[in-house]
């Protein structure tokens, strides 16, 4: 499943990090199933950077535009977002207020499951 960074020469490093990570995650069939199940935009904010991941049946596109119609939103410090992106300590960060999530529980569940696939440690 391709991961497309829109306007990659102007992409911020959050977009670039997520693109690199997702390209490797999505090599797994299980991760692709979760990605297809998300089926919509998810907004990620790390510190002052923003990236919107838009999941479709065929690909994932990444832009830094505001995810106005995002199905879910995740925000936190870069360190907390990096941990979550690697599938680490997400629940702990949420419980301790380092990571803030909102939106569809179904989308958040699939996003978390997607990020936890593969060898992240």
């Amino acid at each position, binding site marked *: 499943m391709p991961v497309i960074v829109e306007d*990659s*020469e102007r992409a*911020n*490093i959050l977009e*670039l*990090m997520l693109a*690199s990570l997702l390209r490797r995650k999505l090599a797994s069939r299980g991760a692709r199933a979760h990605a297809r199940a998300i089926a919509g935009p998810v907004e990620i904010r790390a*510190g002052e950077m923003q990236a919107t991941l838009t999941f479709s049946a065929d690909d994932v596109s990444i832009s*830094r535009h505001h995810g106005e119609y995002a199905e879910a939103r995740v925000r936190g410090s870069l360190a907390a977002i990096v941990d979550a*992106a690697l599938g680490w300590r997400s629940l702990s960060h949420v419980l301790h207020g380092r990571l803030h999530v909102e939106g569809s529980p179904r989308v958040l569940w699939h996003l978390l499951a997607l990020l936890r696939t593969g060898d992240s440690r």
Partner: protein
Amino acid sequence: MTTPLDAVRVRLGVDRVRTDDATRAAYGRDTTENPDGMPEAIVAVNELDELREIVRLAAAARIPLVPRVAGTNLGGLAIPSRGGWVVDLAGMNRIVDIDLDDRIAVIEPGVTFIQLRRTLDELSPRLTIGYPLSPPETSIVANCLLDGLGNLSLRHGSMGEWICGLEAVRADGSIVRTGAWAAGVPPFGRAPLPDLTGLFVSWHGTTGIASKLAVELWPVQPFRERSFVLAYDRAVTLRALRELPALDVLDDLGGLSWPIAKLLFGVAHPRERDPGEPEFFFYVDLSAATRALFDAKRAAVRDFIRGLRRDGLRVEDPIDVPTLVRLEPRLAQLAEFPTRLDFLLDHPDGGLTWVGTYGPLSRFDAACSDGIAVVERHGFPPAIVARPMKGGHFAVLRFIQLFRRADVDDRERVRRCNAELCDVLHRHGFVMYKTPAWAIDRYRPHFDPGFARLVREMHDVLDPDRIMNPGRWEL
């Protein structure tokens, strides 16, 4: 009639003398914007006696000699500006001695960083040399003699200072040894004899060709970590570069600007910075012999970062390299020494150059800001690598330019940019190292007349016929 090159062929064999156009052209250029040259021949030497004889033959016929190993310096210093012979020293690559007790290696000029690394890994993994941000095939001797820097330069200064003594072939083919080595003892240091080693450091091969060099090694500590801190504006990183050395707990500290980060992520032409993303990153290297000492050092750095936040500065928590590598495997280049640097060396545009300077840390911010304005005016992203050196007594500030080397107009654009950068940074007290000939021309009006005269007189003494890398340090 027998020519000098015929004599070289007789001495070395025809295979080690190359005169075909393609090879001569390849040895006449590098990745920089400096004008190409065209040597008459490339002569590969493997032994000291061969080197001496080549120098004697060249001296007799007044043929210019340009020493070269990898040719990766960004000053254009291995380009033969007056023709002659390129002396390819890659085959003089013996590690002559590694003294594990005194932690000194004696090496020939063809020894590369990766070669010494592999040898140390086998022989004594607890010893290391400092590694530059250069390709693994870079010559250690060249980087020391050109006074480059490495990942231990925050502690130990520029690499010229790591030299304990050397052996060089002079322009008449004679040999000189410097440092304590000159007294017939092992090369433990430049003291306590008259320091003639300096006659060969940063002289760009104009005073002789080093045939052996003794260089310091350092212990590898069992507890170590490199971590990155993302800072949302450059003032934070520049403050960290100024103030962190005073803690006296770091092995290395450096700052990278946003275009470097994007190149590392595989973006070949980073165009602009998202206002929300960090402008600069700084990395912090810690190591210690014990866990307790390591934890104490780490705590000191974390306290410093908390202090930045208390002052209202926007900075993220440190992220260690293993974590970053899980996000993007290419970031391993930031922690593996010697490093590959494919994002610079294999760039599709083919041109890589810089204005790399040493200068006072106290003037870092102004120099950096004015330098950024220059490169942006010329249409380049501000790709900066900066480090404090020698405990913070001075700093390195480098502006790196990637350009379309095959495009004459782009080469001219980068020339104009670098010339302006050179002048602007000089006004802030920053002077180019591995100083290209064009930069020496720009510094000429500023040089102390006594310095310029002494340089000329040293050349009169050491190389009266000016056969040793002519075109360099002509004052």
